[in-house]
């Protein structure tokens, strides 16, 4: 298909968001301390990940924090070869969904496992990361 002439716009638009996290900031604070926690509704006991201040099950607004521990098992995974613009230049990376013993599932990068050796059911551990000057985050590692 032939390319027609286009007018390359002179205006560019950069979007960078300030994302509110105050109602569940303990999640991010705990990550800095190396702990992986989430919310549990004080009214109905529903555990939710991602953490949320209002219970989606009973609509209750009181909650407590529970530690999910470290051990999880691999549910499914992929290896990303073609990255989005804001991850340009990164080497191919693996992403997994892991399930904790209480049934809570989490999506995160998977490190230390070769794609050919990754298998649903295998044991993983979650690791909190916080680098100087950066936001905390978390990754799965092969156990």
């Amino acid at each position, binding site marked *: *298909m032939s*390319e*027609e*002439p*286009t007018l390359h*716009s002179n205006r560019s638009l950069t979007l960078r968001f300030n*994302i509110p996290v105050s109602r569940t900031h303990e999640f991010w604070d705990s990550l800095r301390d190396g702990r992986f926690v989430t919310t549990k509704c004080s009214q109905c006991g529903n555990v939710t*990940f*991602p953490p949320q201040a209002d219970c989606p099950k009973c609509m209750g607004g009181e909650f407590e924090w529970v530690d999910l521990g470290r051990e999880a098992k691999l*549910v*499914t*995974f*992929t*290896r*990303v*070869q*073609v*990255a*989005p*613009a*804001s*991850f*340009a230049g*990164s080497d191919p*990376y693996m*992403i997994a*969904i892991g399930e904790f013993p209480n049934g809570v*599932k*989490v*999506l*995160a*990068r998977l490190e230390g496992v070769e*794609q050919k050796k990754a*298998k*649903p059911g295998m044991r993983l551990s979650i690791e909190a990361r916080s680098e100087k000057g950066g*936001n905390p*985050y*978390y990754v799965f590692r092969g156990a």
Partner: protein
Amino acid sequence: MTRVAIVGIGHSRFGRRTDVNVGELAFESIGEAVDDAGVDRSEIKSVIVGTMGSWYEESLPAVVVNEYAGLSGAGTMRVEAACASGSAALKAAYNSILSGETDVALAVGVEKMTEVDSPTSVELIGRAGSYMWEFENFGMTFPAYYALYAVSHMSRYGTTEEDLARIAVKAHRYGAMNPLAQFQKEITLEKALGSPVVAWPLKLYDACPLSDGSAAAVLASEEVAKKLSDTPIWIKGVGYSSDTANLSRRSNYVGLEAAAQAANRAYSAAKVSPGDIDVATAHDCFTIAELMAYEDLGFCKKGEGAKLVREGQTEIGGRIPVNVDGGLKAKGHPVGATGVSMAVEITKQLRGEAGRRQVPLKKGLGLVHNVGGTGHYAYVTILSRD
């Protein structure tokens, strides 16, 4: 309650359309649909524009499209249901007639995805989920979301990369017969299997392209439809549903629950069952998505999608031909346009106007399965000749 029919259809050429802006692109299908319906534009009291946007320059696409097509003054809105925005537009137009608000409504689906560079498009679709928990720290991409499903389906049911590649080969075979398709070239199984990996196990030929395109449908109430058209195609039932933004909150990764639920709702609204359907379009943004659609729609049992592919049952002449317009894979996937494009294809089929791609009709029933995001939104629409 009145019945509602599609009485006019229009469809632009899909592909990398650097020759037209969004208004011009939408007009290609709007003009054709209005002509096909033989309706005066003043009769159209409601125009619903399905588009996801943000990859092209306009912030208010509905009014830009309406201005270009001389439709300003009609009641209008832009609707978004990601890659199912087109079906959402059809649903809203259908509702505007069912409610008695108007006798004639126009559903337009349009998208221009190639005005930004490809990595930016990949970024925008990669954010289509739950931003903080899937994108910010992890860099999910659209193929990666579906790859999570593919790995799970392969592991549980023994579906293979070759089964998925066969779906791509089928799509290209029919795309080669569709003059409006982005790719009109057949491919071999070897070529599909040998293409570069984008998100393992999905390869380039498992994925739909980035596309520009538009499609439009004029809908009318029963009384007006019978006056306007000798071949009105009736909307017999619409089912829609949704699922969690976070994939991690889903119970499994072997099917799209929202799609299965939408299908059940559509079958029950139309009072038909999967075996009654003559022809279907399924949302094959990735080959694994089409395979899961067979199962979610009840065209086969759970876990038997690959068997259906191996037996050729979803080709013309098979039990249930699927995506004989080339599907998203070969026809192209301008996301907002896709749902309307699917309805246009099924309307052509049910009118008997699909030419070389015509499927033999028994009951005169066709189905549109349109998914937004990774099963975040799901719409199933059942169309009927009678």
